[in-house]
C-alpha cells in the first residue's frame, strides 16, 4: 500500500506556500537578539576584554561571558571539550568569547563590534603534519584508529602489481541554505524552551542541562522547520547561547547567524591526506590494501572520533580484500573545527580507493567494471573488519544495473570520458549504541499520533516514517497525525545523521505500530469498528501509547585490530559519470550520471531519487569546485556550490536487497547518495584526459595545469 509508493511529502505544502516556520522566521513579542563576539586569532590568551564600548550602544542590555555560566562550560558530541564561551584562551578563528544581548539585532551586532579584546598571541599550529607543538584540551592527537586484517606484507608479496599514491582533500562547508538560527524563551512554568534549526533535539536538551546545571525536565527543545543540515547542525550552535540568555534575562531571545558567521564558525568536512597502497594479482583480485590516513581536526573533538574510525573501516571500499592495514589519525590544530559532514570521511576515502582501483585495472588491462564485479562484496564476503555479510549486500547488483550503459559507452568527442565510482557505507553510528524510540498513540477522537524525535532536515524522514506507520497499521493518511521534534512529547530518536533515521527510527516506528495494531486487532478495528469507538471505549484506562524501540545490533570493534561488527547493515552504490573536458580551458562539464543504489527497500522512491540527485550535486561540488580556505573564504561569493547549470542528466536505479532487521527491508541513502560521486567524476576525468587527479577540488585551473604538465612531458 504505502511501501514503494511515491507519496507526496507531508511537509511540502507549507513549503510551497511559504508558510513553513523555519527558525529564521520565528518571532515573539519583545524578543531580544543575541550576537556572538568571536576570536579573530587562531591561538591566543585572552589578556583583556573591555565591554564598555558595547554597553555604550543604546539598546544593548547585557554582555555575557563564561563567568555567567551556572553549569559546565564545555560541550561536545563525543567528548566534552569545546567551550561554549572561551575563558582564558582561544584556539581557533571564530571561537565564541562573549554574547551581546540587545533589544534588536542592530544594537546587539553593533555592541558586539564595539567590544575590545586584547589578544596575547601564541604560536598557532596550522600544519597537522607538525604535531607536538599544539596544546589543546585533547593533546595533539585526537584519535588514532587501527584496522588490521590478515597479513598485508604477505598480500603485497603475492601481488603482481602495486599502486601507491597520496590523495588530498580540503575543508568543505555544509552550505545549508538556512543558516543557524533559533529562539529561546521561558514558558509559563519557567521552563526554558528552545526552538531551533537542528538535526537533533534530545542531545541538545542534554547539553543545555549541563550548561545551566538544570534538570532536563526543566528544558524543552523543539525542532523548527530546518533548512538543511548535512551534519552541520548536529553540534550545539545557537541553542546553548539562547538558553543561557533566557536563563539570565528571563526574556525571549532570538539568534541567527549571518552567512559569513556560518562559514566562519561552523564545523567543516575534515581535510584528509590519504597514503594508499594497493596490491593486486594479474587476474584482478585485490590482495592487499595499506592505507595511512592523516587529517586536521582543528582544536576540538566534535565528531572527529567518528570520522577517524569510519575512514579506517571503509578504507578498502566495497571490496573483498584479504589483507588490510589501515591507520587513521586526526591531529589537533588551531585551524577550523572539523566535524560531521555527510559521509564522515568516506567520500574522501572513496576518491582514493576508486582512483586506485582504476589505475590497477589499467595496469592489468582489465575493464573497470569487471574488476569491481570480481572484487565486490556480496553475501558471504568478509569485510575489512572481519564481518561476514550475511544479508542485504546488493553491491554487485548495483554494478549490474549500470552495466548496460557502461558497456555501451561511446566517447562522443575529444574530451569525453566515463568513470565509475563505488561505495559502501555502514548505516548508523559506528560500533556503538544508537537507538531510537518512537511513540504511537491512539489519541483523542480516535486519531493515531506518531510522536517522534526524528528530525526532518529535508531528507524526507517525516514522510517515510509515516509511510511505515500507515503500512503497518493498514490505515489512510487522514487517520494519522505527525507530532515531530519536541522533547516534551517524544522520546530520543537519536540524531538525523549517519543515514540512520529510515532504518533505526523506521524500525522503532514499526515496532510501536505493531503494538497498536495488536490492540486494534483485538478491539475489532480490522473487522469494521471505528477508531473513535475504540478510543472512547478504552481511554479511561490511561493513554493508549506504544513505545517502539530499536538499536541496530552492532557489538563494536576491537581497539587494536578494528575487527568486529561496526554496523548491522550497509548501503552499497555504483555511480557512472560521463564528462566532457574542454582541452583548451580545462573546463569539465558533467553530462550524465547513472546512479544505482542498494537501499534495501525503497519506501518512497521519488524521495530517494531526490536525495541521490542532491548527493550527485554535492559530489560534483566536492570534485570540481568546493574548497573552504581559512581566512579567505567569506561567503557564497568565495565558496561555490553547483548551480542548476552544473548538473548533468541523472538516471537513478534502485536495488532492493532487503535488510532483514530494517523496516520492510529498508536501510538508508542520505550519505550514500553523495559518497561515490566525486570518485566517479575523477575517474571520468582520467578517462577523458589521461590525467590522474590526486587533489580535490579539481577545479578548472588545476585541471588545465595538470593537462598542460602532461602535454609538456610528452
Amino acid at each position, binding site marked *: 500500500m504505502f511501501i514503494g509508493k*511515491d507519496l*507526496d*511529502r507531508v*511537509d*511540502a*505544502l*507549507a*513549503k*510551497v*506556500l*511559504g*508558510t*513553513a516556520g*523555519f527558525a*529564521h*522566521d520565528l*518571532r515573539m513579542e519583545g524578543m531580544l537578539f543575541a550576537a556572538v563576539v568571536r576570536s579573530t586569532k587562531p591561538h591566543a590568551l585572552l589578556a583583556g576584554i573591555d565591554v564598555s564600548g558595547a554597553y555604550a550602544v543604546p539598546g544593548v542590555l547585557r554582555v555575557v561571558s563564561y563567568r555567567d555560566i551556572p553549569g559546565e562550560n564545555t560541550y561536545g558530541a563525543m567528548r566534552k571539550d569545546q567551550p561554549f564561551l572561551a575563558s582564558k584562551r582561544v584556539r581557533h578563528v571564530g571561537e565564541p568569547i562573549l554574547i551581546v544581548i540587545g533589544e534588536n539585532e542592530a544594537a546587539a551586532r553593533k555592541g558586539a563590534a564595539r567590544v575590545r579584546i586584547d589578544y596575547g598571541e601564541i604560536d598557532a599550529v596550522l600544519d597537522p603534519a607538525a604535531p607536538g607543538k599544539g596544546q589543546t584540551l585533547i593533546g595533539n592527537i585526537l584519535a588514532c584508529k587501527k584496522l588490521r586484517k590478515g597479513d598485508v606484507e604477505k598480500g603485497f608479496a603475492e601481488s603482481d602489481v602495486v599502486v601507491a599514491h597520496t590523495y588530498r582533500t580540503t575543508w568543505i562547508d*555544509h*552550505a*545549508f*541554505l*538556512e*543558516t543557524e538560527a533559533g529562539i529561546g524563551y521561558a514558558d509559563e512554568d519557567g521552563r526554558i524552551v528552545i526552538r531551533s534549526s537542528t538535526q537533533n533535539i534530545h542531545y541538545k536538551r542534554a547539553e543545555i542541562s549541563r550548561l545551566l546545571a538544570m534538570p532536563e525536565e526543566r528544558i524543552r527543545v523543539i525542532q523548527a*522547520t*530546518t*533548512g*538543511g543540515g*548535512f551534519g552541520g547542525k548536529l553540534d550545539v550552535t545557537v541553542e546553548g547561547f539562547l538558553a543561557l540568555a533566557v536563563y539570565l534575562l528571563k526574556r525571549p531571545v532570538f539568534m541567527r547567524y*549571518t*552567512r559569513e558567521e556560518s562559514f566562519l564558525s561552523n564545523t567543516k568536512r575534515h581535510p584528509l591526506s590519504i597514503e594508499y597502497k594497493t596490491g593486486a594479482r594479474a587476474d584482478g583480485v585485490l590482495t592487499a590494501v595499506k592505507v595511512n590516513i592523516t587529517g586536521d581536526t582543528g582544536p576540538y573533538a566534535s565528531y572527529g572520533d567518528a570520522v577517524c574510525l569510519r575512514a579506517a573501516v571503509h578504507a578498502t571500499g566495497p571490496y573483498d580484500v584479504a589483507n588490510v592495514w589501515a591507520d587513521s589519525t586526526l591531529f589537533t590544530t588551531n585551524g577550523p573545527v572539523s566535524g560531521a559532514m555527510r559521509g564522515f570521511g568516506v567520500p574522501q576515502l572513496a576518491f582514493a580507493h576508486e582512483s586506485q582501483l582504476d589505475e590497477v585495472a589499467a595496469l592489468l588491462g582489465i575493464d573497470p567494471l569487471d574488476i569491481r564485479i570480481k572484487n565486490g562484496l556480496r553475501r558471504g564476503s568478509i569485510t575489512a573488519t572481519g564481518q561476514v555479510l550475511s544479508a542485504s549486500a546488493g553491491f554487485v547488483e548495483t554494478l549490474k544495473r549500470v552495466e548496460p550503459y557502461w558497456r555501451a559507452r561511446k566517447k562522443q568527442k575529444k574530451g569525453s570520458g566515463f568513470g565509475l565510482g563505488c561505495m559502501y557505507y555502514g548505516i548508523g553510528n559506528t560500533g556503538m549504541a544508537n537507538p531510537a524510540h518512537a511513540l504511537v498513540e491512539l489519541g483523542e477522537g480516535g486519531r493515531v499520533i506518531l510522536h517522534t524525535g526524528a528530525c526532518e*532536515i*529535508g*531528507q*524526507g524522514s517525516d514522510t517515510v516514517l509515516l509511510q511505515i506507520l500507515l503500512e503497518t497499521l493498514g490505515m489512510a493518511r487522514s487517520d494519522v497525525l505527525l507530532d515531530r521534534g519536541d522533547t516534551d512529547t517524544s522520546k530520543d530518536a537519536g540524531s538525523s545523521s549517519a543515514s540512520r533515521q529510515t532504518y533505526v527510527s523506521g524500525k522503532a516506528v514499526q515496532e510501536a505500530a505493531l503494538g497498536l495494531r495488536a490492540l486494534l486487532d483485538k478491539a475489532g478495528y480490522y473487522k469494521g469498528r471505528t477508531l473513535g469507538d475504540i478510543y472512547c471505549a478504552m481511554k479511561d484506562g490511561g493513554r493508549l501509547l506504544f513505545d517502539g524501540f530499536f538499536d541496530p545490533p552492532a557489538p563494536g570493534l576491537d581497539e587494536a585490530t578494528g575487527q568486529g561488527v561496526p554496523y548491522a547493515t550497509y548501503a552499497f552504490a555504483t555511480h557512472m559519470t560521463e564528462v566532457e573536458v574542454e582541452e583548451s580551458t580545462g573546463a569539465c562539464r558533467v553530462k550524465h550520471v547513472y546512479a544505482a543504489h542498494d537501499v534495501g527497500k525503497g519506501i518512497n522512491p*521519488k*524521495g530517494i*531519487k*531526490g*536525495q*541521490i*540527485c*542532491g*548527493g*550527485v*550535486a*554535492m559530489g560534483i561540488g566536492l570534485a570540481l569546485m568546493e574548497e573552504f580556505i581559512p581566512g579567505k573564504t567569506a*561567503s*557564497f*561569493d568565495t565558496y561555490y*556550490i*553547483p*548551480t*542548476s*547549470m552544473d*548538473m548533468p542528466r*541523472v538516471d537513478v536505479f534502485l536495488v532492493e536487497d532487503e535488510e532483514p532487521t530494517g523496516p520492510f527491508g529498508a536501510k538508508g541513502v542520505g550519505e550514500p547518495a553523495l559518497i561515490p560521486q566525486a570518485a566517479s567524476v575523477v575517474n571520468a576525468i582520467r578517462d577523458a584526459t589521461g590525467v590522474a587527479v590526486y587533489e580535490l577540488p579539481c577545479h578548472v585551473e588545476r585541471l588545465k595545469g595538470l593537462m598542460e604538465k602532461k602535454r609538456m612531458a610528452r
Partner: protein
Amino acid sequence: MKRVGFTLNRKAIACDVEENELLLHTLRERLSVTSVKEGCSIGECGTCTVLIDDEPRYACLTLTAKVEGREVKTVEYLAHGDLLHPLQESFISHGAVQCGFCTPGMLLVAYSLLLKNREPTDEQIREAMSGNLCRCTGYVQVIEAIKDAAPVFVSSGS
C-alpha cells in the same frame, strides 16, 4: 523615513521605511512576509528572490525606495486561497521540495520564466534557475517539475 507605495501580491501597500532600508527587511520585518528568505545578504544565494514587475531580483540588494510604483510579487501571489498554482502542485508531485528553504524563490523564478516562455527547453529552464542555489535537490526534480507545469501554466493574474 520615506513613504513608499507599491503593489504587493495584488494589494496596494503604502509603507513608511528608512531611506536605507532594503526590500528584504521591509518584507520580512515590517510586512511579515517571511516566505522571502535571507540566505546570505549579498545576492549570492537566491533565497531572497522576489518578482518586481515580473522580473526576478534579489530583495537583499534592492532598496525599498526603488520599488515605488512597482508590482512586487512573493510566493503568496501564486496560490488562490486553497487553490495551488500548477507550479506549486508540480513541485510537490515531482519531489522538488526537500528542506524547502530555496523553494519560494525557485517558484517565483519558474513563474516568471513560464510567463514569457510556455515551452522552455531543459537548457532554458536550467539557465533561468541558475540564480537560485539549492543544496538538497540537485535541481533535477525542480527542472522536471517546471517542465511538466509548462503546458498547464496559467498566469495568477486575476
